[in-house]
């Protein structure tokens, strides 16, 4: 895919992010990142490169030691109330710390929390948003199914549907395809790509360079807490950029048809 000209104002921007876990070495040291409306930004990098930490800093779950995360409309992230932040920014986690024993419809509806005034029950508009999200994420007919009974793919779609009803312009998605089979990986990225067409800014952390190469408008390669490369799939998925990070045992090629670059681990 060809990288689009970046619009003027980023939906989310991080400047000079520094972070270290208590007693540990610095994970990030002065990281800058911009996320623009309508783009799907894939954050790639080896294990331990700081991807998940960066995602948690961008979502507000962690506070940077120095530096700042800003949202285009709302200003600095740390000044927002929890509800304001949830309306501006949706986080799709890789999984849940605990899978609650709710039905799918209730789980998806929990995404409306930030839109409900305190002590108020869901309105007709809230219910309509939930129904639409269930439809979009192909969960119709599973509304009353308990969450623990869902397959990995269905659970991933339920997480996406819940984020959808948050109606946030910025999405942060953590490894959406890590537990999915190949068709579901493709379907998940298709769904996320469709969301960006509606003007959302989506940043996804992924280990799947090939899906990132096919769907992302921009890729960022994180290594040792620094963004060592940023650009289109052609610019990032090439030996000059990847070899210093992933080593030499990679095979590079292009997909027939779309011509998108791909990378495979190769023996020997």
């Amino acid at each position, binding site marked *: 895919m060809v990288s689009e000209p970046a619009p003027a104002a980023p939906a989310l921007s991080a400047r000079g992010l520094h972070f270290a876990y208590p007693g540990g070495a610095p994970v990030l040291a002065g990281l800058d990142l911009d996320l623009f409306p309508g783009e799907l930004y894939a954050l790639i990098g080896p294990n331990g490169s700081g991807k998940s930490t960066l995602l948690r800093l961008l979502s507000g*779950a962690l506070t940077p030691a120095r530096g700042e995360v800003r949202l285009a409309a709302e200003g600095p992230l740390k000044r927002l109330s929890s509800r304001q932040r*949830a309306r501006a920014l949706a986080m799709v*986690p890789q999984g849940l*710390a*605990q899978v*609650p024993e*709710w039905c799918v419809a209730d789980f998806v509806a929990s995404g409306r*929390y930030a839109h409900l005034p305190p*002590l108020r029950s869901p309105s007709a508009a809230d219910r309509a948003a939930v129904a639409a999200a269930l439809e979009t994420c192909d969960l119709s007919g599973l509304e009353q199914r308990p969450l623990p009974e869902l397959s990995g793919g269905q659970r991933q779609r339920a997480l996406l549907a819940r984020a959808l009803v948050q109606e946030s312009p910025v999405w942060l998605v953590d490894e959406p395809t890590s537990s999915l089979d190949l068709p579901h990986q493709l379907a998940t990225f298709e769904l996320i790509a469709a969301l960006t067409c509606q003007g959302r800014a989506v940043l996804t952390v992924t280990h799947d360079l090939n899906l990132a190469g096919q769907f992302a408008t921009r890729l960022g390669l994180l290594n040792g807490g620094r963004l060592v490369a940023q650009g289109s799939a052609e610019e990032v998925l090439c030996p000059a950029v990847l070899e210093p990070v992933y080593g030499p045992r990679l095979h590079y090629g292009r997909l027939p048809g779309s011509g998108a670059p791909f990378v495979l681990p190769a023996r020997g």
Partner: protein
Amino acid sequence: MVGSTERWSAGECWSGLWGALGGQPELELARQRIFDLRLARALTGLGVGAALALSGALMQGVFRNDLASPSVLGVSSGASVGASLVLMALSSGGGARALLGAGGSPLLVTAGALLGALFAMLLVASVASRAGRISVPTLLLLGIALNATLGGFQTLLHSLALADFEVARALMVWGFGTLDDRLPAQLWLLFAALLVCAAAIPFVAHELDLFESGEEDAAHLGVDIRTIRILALGAACLAAAAAVAVSWQIGFVGLVVPHLARLVFGRSYRRLLPACLLGGPALLLGIDTLQRLMLPKLSLGPGVLMSLVGGPFFFFLLLQQRGRLRTW
């Protein structure tokens, strides 16, 4: 006499209630007095049961552990030590009589209990603060450590109190978990505290439901984790302290009632918390009535039978959770 099982006709009860509410007395004075005492006992049971059950359910919601309750976590022990300290400090000025129902400062005793409960809760929360959730082994170890330490402290206070027979006797009677002979001021305090805690329910119930998928996830949905934790645990401490200040430790109500309520009303805290306000009194008054029917000669508080029933119940819950060892 108050604890006796003598039967009253429905008509007599209505007359007594009318008299207690300030209407024209229809019963003879002595009989009306007995009714008043019985009514106070029932109201005490109602308030204590509701407070303990609500306290347990709130703790279970915040720590996401169905075994949490004021007695298991040591919060009731903290409240007892706090209240005992205040009582001993007041003992020269008639503090013992505050317990026996002849005067004193129930407000100070309740405040002491609240401070003790908050102290114990701060210790628990500081251990839990990293992940929010308390695992079963952590919960049990915390409970053992706190209950043993505070229990030892309580014994020390009892020993010191032996010098004054009245204070020692008061602490002893209080320690039975009795519902008898409470002062009107104590009842007012209990229900005022309960009202404050119940008023917190609409502000935390939905949020505690969202805690079920983890605190970080709830925060991403817009839940103000810190505020909800402070509000829910503050209410849990106040409810436990108010109950302990009135009838000392009645164990396991806060554990058993939320568990039974979950079986009937499901896991949602929006139904569970109000259900505990009704289930707590039902269980405690039921146990109290049962005990008086079974052992009419013994003037025991419901705390004794509650422990005899609640202990095995806790053991049963532990056995049930054994299958989930891998997720602990």
